[in-house]
């Protein structure tokens, strides 16, 4: 069965500092990988996705993630964060051919001025 582990439940960083949010997954088959963001009182918005091809994926708002098959990881990075990046970030995986997304428990990113 698939599972997703987000290693940090909370990550506080200072504005303009770099950040990495970690995500590891387990699956016995090929997968698609996603990062979603949830701003306060809003739904889930897609940041970026990996379906195939280049392992470095660029998304919206300056975020990027790298798919590492050998380490079964899909860590999210941003070189310089802003106050507006304060939100909950969710990593998710789906099997090729399956429809459901399996989510990690989320990482709350807090940006301090």
């Amino acid at each position, binding site marked *: 069965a698939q599972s997703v582990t987000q290693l940090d439940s909370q990550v506080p960083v200072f504005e303009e500092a770099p950040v990495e949010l970690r995500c590891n997954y387990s699956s016995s088959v090929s997968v*698609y990988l996603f990062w979603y963001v949830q701003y306060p*009182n809003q739904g889930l918005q897609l940041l970026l996705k990996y379906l195939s091809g280049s392992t470095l994926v660029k998304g919206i708002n300056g975020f990027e993630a790298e798919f590492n098959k050998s380490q079964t990881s899909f860590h999210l990075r941003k070189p310089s964060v802003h106050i507006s990046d304060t939100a909950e970030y969710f990593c998710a995986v789906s099997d090729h051919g399956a429809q459901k997304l399996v989510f990690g428990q989320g990482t709350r990113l807090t940006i301090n001025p």
Partner: protein
Amino acid sequence: EPEVTQTPSHQVTQMGQEVILRCVPISNHLYFYWYRQILGQKVEFLVSFYNNEISEKSEIFDDQFSVERPDGSNFTLKIRSTKLEDSAMYFCASSPDPTYEQYFGPGTRLTVT
């Protein structure tokens, strides 16, 4: 930009009552989903729906739950007899293709008292 909408934003109901949560997916999408997020926990898949039938469901989606696309635009989740543990945020999502990203609505917060 088209978006998934959900009504109501917050529903309070008494234990044992039936509730219907409503969603309007993006108009040209063919695949529909329900997820839930109990407070402080991860987002969990409930059910996927395609071509007017359930294509996949989780073990959470027992006989108390049902889904329907009554009129070609709405997609509903019914809980027949609510329990306290059904209290959660319920998210609807849609996608044009199962390999594509899922677009999420803002959620309905269900409180069972």
